[in-house]
């Protein structure tokens, strides 16, 4: 066993151990996802997860940080994200006060002033810089969420950070992480991410789970639900995914729906209760309209039939 990997805490030692670790925190992963997660920890490479919305891409970062006892640092991407909100910013107001104070004290040494002003305590650290800092619990988990929403310029900036785990600040110098953080990048594919960035990562496409796994997920995440209802819920959702919807429901929607039904004390799926709660599953009016009348009856009949 490689001792370097174990020195920074209890990283799982095999794919099975990884699977167990995730399961212990209520995340029922496919073996393939556990494999790439394990690899990314062992190889110190960022993990790039792509897939439809609501299949649990973000969740794995949260689970990982909780299970390993590491700090979770989250960078939510959006168009227009720039260095001052992703990496660092100077606290200019405080700096200005410091200059005035120095003046009032009759301090005229410019070099001294400059090194005082651009010191650690006037720096506001944003997620990427925070992730490079050493932490007593071990390197943190850095979640770069929905990278497809940021623009290409930011993506290019990430290249340097992700390959060397360091940031250069002109007034301050280079900040390098003593141990690279665990990086999880997610994308919903609203645009393609450049190959140069993907090349530095392990890539994995997260798919919708199979019926069996989804059933297990529902049972774990919605504890009070009856066996019959959970089975019907999963069958119904799986049938919806086979249809030609604008937006198919993800696992997150399945859990929402199961929770909603369980809150309403539903025992089994009926046209009435499904009609009332369909908004938890389908998020486009066109899709909901399509799921009415005969179409709904048919899916419902398949989902509730005993076999």
């Amino acid at each position: 066993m490689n001792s370097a990997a174990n020195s920074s805490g209890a990283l799982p030692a095999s794919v099975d151990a990884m699977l167990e670790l995730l399961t212990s925190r209520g995340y029922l992963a496919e073996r393939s996802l556990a494999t790439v997660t394990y690899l990314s920890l062992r190889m110190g490479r960022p993990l790039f997860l792509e897939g439809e919305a609501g299949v649990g891409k973000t969740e794995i970062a949260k689970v990982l940080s909780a299970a390993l006892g590491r700090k979770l640092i989250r960078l939510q991407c959006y168009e227009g994200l720039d260095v001052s909100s992703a990496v660092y910013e100077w606290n200019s107001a405080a700096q200005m006060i410091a200059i005035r104070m120095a003046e009032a004290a009759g301090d005229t040494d410019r070099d001294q002033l400059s090194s005082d002003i651009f010191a650690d305590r006037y720096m506001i650290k944003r997620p990427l810089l925070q992730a490079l800092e050493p932490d007593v619990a071990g390197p943190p988990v850095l979640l770069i969420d929905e990278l497809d929403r940021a623009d290409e310029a930011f993506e290019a900036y990430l290249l340097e950070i992700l390959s060397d785990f360091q940031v250069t600040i002109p007034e301050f110098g280079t900040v390098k992480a003593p141990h690279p953080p665990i990086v999880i990048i997610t994308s919903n594919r609203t645009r393609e991410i450049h190959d140069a960035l993907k090349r530095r990562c392990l890539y994995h496409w997260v798919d919708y789970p199979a019926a069996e796994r989804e059933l297990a997920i529902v049972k774990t995440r919605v504890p009070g639900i009856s066996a019959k209802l959970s089975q019907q819920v999963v069958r119904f959702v799986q049938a919806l995914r086979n249809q030609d919807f604008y937006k198919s429901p993800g696992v997150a929607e399945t859990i929402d729906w199961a929770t909603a039904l369980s809150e309403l004390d539903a025992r089994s799926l009926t046209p009435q209760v499904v009609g009332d709660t369909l908004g938890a599953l389908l998020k486009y009016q066109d899709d909901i309209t399509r799921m009415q009348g005969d179409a709904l009856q048919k899916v419902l009949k398949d989902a509730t039939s005993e076999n």
Partner: protein
Amino acid sequence: MAINHLAPEQTEQFADNIVGFARALRAAGMPVGPGAVIDAMSALQVIDIGNRSDVFTTLEAIFVKRHEHAQIFRQAFNLFFRASEEWKHMLDSVPLPEQAKKKPQAGARRVQEAMSQPRMTETPQHQEQDLRLSVSDKEILQKKDFAQMSAAEISEALRAVERMHLPQAELLTRRHQRDPRGLRLDLRRTLRASLRTGGDIIDIHRLGRIEKPAPIVALLDISGSMSEYTRLFLHFLHAITDARKRVSVFLFGTRLTNVTRALRQRDPDEALASCSASVEDWAGGTRISASLHNFNKLWARRVLSQGAIVLLISDGLEREADSRLAFEMDRLHRSCRRLIWLNPLLRFGGFEAKAQGIKMMLPHVDEFRPVHNLSSIQELITTLSQPLPPHHRSLIRSAA
């Protein structure tokens, strides 16, 4: 053992196998660099390579960087790592896509054309005439319908299209850069400069918004009824793809094909050749409604997310015109910044929207323009380079 030729103790053969597999993937059209091979070897050292599915996932995570390649990878993996077979024989039988087999030769057509040019046999008299007529010829060329051009005129028009430059229609982004006339104060830079004077602020530095061109998405109809126009439009789209960063091009007839990557190639002939190689339904029927449905479902969220301008180039002659067509047009219209329909049928002076399909589509476009000669393409470029009013849509809707 399931994958005997991956046995770790035979390091040399193990490396050979990974390299061979990477080559097979490359031959099948996947971009696999040497860095990935090294990654693959180090990754396989930390997992149990007796477990075939773990090996699959591991190699997939390293070699596949696009979801579209997952299928190719799966096939290649199954072929390559089939149990108890000589892998070298397998390598030869990995099916190569058509493209990889015979690469279109760049400029082959132009070379041919150059060779078959008539020699300079015309009499000097003719040449004089040509010179006299050249200015008005240009004017005629500007107004002439693409469908009625001779081969020579088409090549002249192609050259004109290539010369056209699309000025950048600018979009303000939320990012900032140094700009002496900017509206925002650059405190960081101002403060740094003030240190030179011991803390007195003399120069105020400013920031302005970064501007960038709006993305353009072109949906080009390549059905039989459009065949006289498609080549020219493709040239036009190639010219703007070359000059601009965010341009996506889709071709549709009975099915939708994304040719953005093919058009990225520098040489227009090579780009057009690989474009036509990737399309199966060239000059066939039209299924606008189905193609738009596919676009809306698979691509709209990916290419329209940043305020794109959509150019729909089609004559709108759809046989299956029903409410679905109107529905898909409406969805497309709602997910882009501006929907411009370019229709070569508009060349006819008394054009009326009589065809069922056109009637269905018309209420959902922001602009309806002719595009059948050089001057109409020039006008289109002028329109595209004008700044876009941010909330123009509601105005147009209420006026319609």
